[in-house]
């Protein structure tokens, strides 16, 4: 089921949450994404896909918030994958070192596929 946190779209695929970044990733939208990611992690998600298919511009505050999200996910033992990042944003992420911390997939499906390979199957009691 897809939910929205104000203007943040997200949905879950198994234990993976897919969160959609908006067209401009700044302080305001970044904090909304962060809140949504925390909410998903608190709900038991084990992985996060942040999808940038709508994102045209990212500023440095947005990037610093993304780093905060990566920190939080790491503390929760969850993996983060970025998907559908355009070239300019990718260059920016490279420049600021984000791509050393997260995997980047071409699109959401690729991100989910990669995560399902890596993630161990759920334990059935």
């Amino acid at each position: 089921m897809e939910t929205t946190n104000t203007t943040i779209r997200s949905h879950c695929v198994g234990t993976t949450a897919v969160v959609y970044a908006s067209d401009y990733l700044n302080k305001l939208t970044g904090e909304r994404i962060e809140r949504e990611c925390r909410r998903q992690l608190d709900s038991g998600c084990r992985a996060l896909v942040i999808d940038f298919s709508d994102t045209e511009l990212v500023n440095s505050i947005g990037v610093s918030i993304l780093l905060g999200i990566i920190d939080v996910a790491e503390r929760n033992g969850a993996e983060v994958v970025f998907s559908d990042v355009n070239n300019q944003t990718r260059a920016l992420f490279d420049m600021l070192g984000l791509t050393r911390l997260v995997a980047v997939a071409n699109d959401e499906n690729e991100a989910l596929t990669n995560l399902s390979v890596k993630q161990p199957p759920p334990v059935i009691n």
Partner: protein
Amino acid sequence: MNGSSSKEGVRRVLGSVKRHEFVGRSTELERVVAQASDKYNGRGLLLLMEPAAGVSELLRQAYDEIFNQHSHVVPIYFAFTRNETTAVAAAIEFLNSFLQQYIAHRRNDPELCHLALTLQDLLELAPPDDFDWIRQLVEAYERQRFSKDDKALVRFCLGAPQRIPESFGRPFVMLDGAQLAEQLNGSVSLGTEILHVFDRANVAYVLAGLRRQILQSAYNAKLDFETLDLLRLEQLSVAEARLLVEQLGQRQHVAVSEEAKDLLVQQFGCSAFFITTFFQAAREKRTGLISYLDCERLYIDELLGGRIQNYFADLLEEMAPSNDLRLALVRLLWESIAGDQRVASFEACRRRLHIQADEMETILQQLHIYEFVNWDGSLVEFADGPQAWKDYLKTRYRLNLMNEPRALVVAEALADALKRAPHTMARHYRQVAKYELRDLISLFDCQSIPSVLLNYAEFSKRWKGARLEEIMSGMGAETERLSLPQVVNVASAASFNSDLRQVCDERRCLVAHAFDSGFYADAREIVWLVAEVDSKTEVPTELAELWCDRLDRLAITAGFRRHQVWLVSSEGFNEEAAETLARRGAFFSCRQQLDLLSDRLGSTPAPAVRPLDDANEFLVVVPMGEDNELLAANTVEQIARRLNFRPEAINQIKTAVVEACINASEHSFSPDRKIYQRFRLESDRLVVTISSRGVVPTNIGGNVAQNESTEPADVSEERRGWGLKLIRTLMDEVEFERVDEGTRLKMTKYLRNSST
């Protein structure tokens, strides 16, 4: 001939020369004449003169011009002279001159200004319409004269111009030599009284005199500076002084060679007073001024027994009336100038002269207004003064205190002057032929220059032997750039350490106090120590190191916390010297680099807030916050497309603009909460300037990017410092520019490699 008509049809009334012979000062003359107009009615003009700059002829020319207009403005010119000994005598003389000049103006008869007339004579010469008020004035004066109230009499005389009936004319009073008015004996301070009377009289007036004296009198009289205009009168320019020399040569029938003309201009420091005085002497002695020897021989004659001697002797006599005191004063002055002790306490000076404190104060006050010393109330700094002053003191010292034979003193003074002449001219020609280092440094003003201009080794490797056009074009494409500081004060290094006088011309070794990026903060304060090293070939290592050591020592002694050495040499520096200098972090340039630098600094002044230049410039103002940086980003995107930037480059520019706007919003404490964006399209680049008002923390901009006193509150705060890093990475050139309030970030993106 006074009162005669010149070729231009302007009668000479008080002027010593015809209008077309009056050299320089045309702007000042216009300004003084304008003061007589209705526009300035009731306002005073203080004419602040540098010592020996000459002001009398300027006022006399202004007088003639106004007189010849024959309008309702009645010009009155009065020069205080050393002939008057009391304020009362000077005031009575003023009254007499006033009436004489008034009647001359009313009768349109310039000759009347030059006759010796009593008040009774003037009454008889008064036009019938004026007779009654002048008679009343004379009668009132006679009554006042015997009232035994000096102050009232002085005020009465000075106030006489106000008594002109309105329908007969409006007085315009020009007073010359205000410093002499202060030196008159008696119970009345005439200078202050003059200002009191004219300030309250609603009469336009000019008070001319030594700048320090006039300002002091104005403060003493508690004048409202809002109602006063100030005009500063400095020495003539070199070109004007040379023209004066030429004209004096013709007028005084003194043959002068071209070399002598240049020497006299330099030797007298462009002083109209000294040059004019010198030519009067040449005429009297029928001496041609062809060789340096002709000039210096006459100079020494004048110095030891002519007009120059009289001028300085009169000054010293006013300061120290008794012979013993005068000699002690000469000793104090010369020994201080010749020795290393340029600064002394008031008490030390007083003890050396064996006089009371009030007497010492009077002497120092006089020396101060003539700018022979700088006295702040406690410390006395002995200034150089004009060359003639130093020569006068030295010869007096040797003759009167050391009792050396006159013949010896004369011979050696002449020899010294002759030996000095070529050096004086060499210094001048060097300045004319080239840049003035001080001016060049003053132009720094946070401008960005190719770094190679301050690195001779690199410059030599890449450009040595290349054509000038090629080099200049290459400079334009240089991407490795250096942001110069904003220089706030430049002084001779010898002012910090007098030993340096022995090794370098004062103008060629400078200390420049500056701020990186124009931010006035401790961390940005830097002192540039700049020296021109004399060498006919590339400077060798030993000499380069010697200069580096000298300047480093100066920095330590003077307590400069951060300094930058910059050595300049005509032919550059040899390879080893260059390596040494680079290792020591010094900048080093050759003459050609300086020429290029001069060209760049002169042609690209630091941008100030200015209107849009043309159709290629856009100004956008957005309120801070509310994602308004996106508006700027979208605007710059449209503009960048016009230059055919690649989409990636456009995105980089947009991101940089966004970051700059965020910076402006977060850091500026802006009072108007607005971001000013200027986008300028040039043929090969886009220049974006983002500015905002407000005080900016010191950790913004420049290379010293961290504020040591504030640690980031947490990791995310630390991460928030990425904006500038991003901007620097995304754009080709980034520089912070100084503005008094706030900051301005200028970013440039070049089209090269960016176009499709």
